[in-house]
């Protein structure tokens, strides 16, 4: 264990926290991907996201850590749990053996890409200044809500507005895609009624109950 002997004792606590959180993250992710029951998978994914939020906080990304817990562990996972409750089907066998050759080729290709990426990171880890620990201490307001918010509204205003549009489209699309045939008929019925009302009011704009009351 060469890397432990030349470690700074001030960094030992940080390293300990990192390894605990990293173990929780990887273990939770493995549990998510291997479980047969979707409810167990969702719960371990929530645990993974909490551990990841801790790692974000150790990277001084405080705002993103809170956002991770609020949005991922809060909102998105609640959505997942709702859908699991609606579908509630357990698989007969979790891993498919149909099309096994394509899958083996896919896994081999993925493994090769991962091997190249890991090799690149490990090969450059002492020569590249980006991959080592940062030499300059971070400013005290790094990663806070005000810093990220200023960057968001000064440099990234248009992407921010685009993402709000995207969320609106996602809401409308989600509602339209997931509604049943009965709800669709009801919606068409409502649209038909509204169109009738509009046509009637445009045909007779000077009818007595719609007339302005100034005379």
């Amino acid at each position, binding site marked *: 264990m060469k890397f432990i002997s030349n470690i700074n004792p001030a960094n030992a606590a940080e*390293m300990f926290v*990192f390894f605990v959180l*990293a173990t929780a993250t*990887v273990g939770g*992710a*493995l549990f*998510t*991907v291997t479980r047969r029951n979707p409810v167990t998978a969702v719960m371990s*994914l929530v645990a993974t*996201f909490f551990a990841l939020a801790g*790692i*974000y906080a150790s*990277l001084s*990304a405080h*705002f*993103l850590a809170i*956002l991770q817990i609020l*949005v*991922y562990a809060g*909102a*998105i996972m609640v959505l*997942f749990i709702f*859908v699991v409750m*609606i*579908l509630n*089907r357990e*698989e007969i066998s*979790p*891993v*498919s053996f149909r*099309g096994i050759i394509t*899958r083996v080729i*896919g*896994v081999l290709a*993925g*493994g090769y890409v*991962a091997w190249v990426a*890991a090799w690149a990171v490990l090969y450059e880890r002492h020569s590249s200044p*980006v*991959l080592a620990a*940062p030499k*300059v201490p*971070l*400013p005290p307001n*790094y*990663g806070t809500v005000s*810093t*990220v918010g200023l*960057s*968001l509204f000064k440099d*990234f205003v248009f992407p921010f507005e685009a*993402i709000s549009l*995207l*969320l609106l489209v*996602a*809401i409308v699309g*989600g509602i339209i*895609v*997931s509604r*049943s045939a009965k709800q669709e008929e009801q919606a068409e019925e409502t649209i038909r009624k509204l169109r009738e009302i509009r046509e009637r009011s445009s045909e007779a704009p000077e009818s007595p109950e719609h007339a302005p009351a100034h005379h």
Partner: protein
Amino acid sequence: MPTYYYLLLSLVLFLIGTAGVLLRRNALIVLMAIELQLNAGNLAMLAFARALNDTKGHVFAFFVIALAAAEAAVGLAILVGIFRTRQTVNLDEITLMKR
């Protein structure tokens, strides 16, 4: 903490997510594995943001989180729609586009 520790963790997370996408047949688990992949990307972005002493990576991670929320909403809605018409979420049985 050196940055490459975070990068290796991000790589492992992305690999687990990819294995989930490629090997699982339950569409719900595949969506969860996609969330894992997005989080691995976020982790790499935050690690590089700290290494370069720059806040732009945080803004990008913010966008990725919003994108993941939209993706989960639409993806789960599609799943519910498929389940209504075909009574399955097994990806091997959803082969309508093949015929």
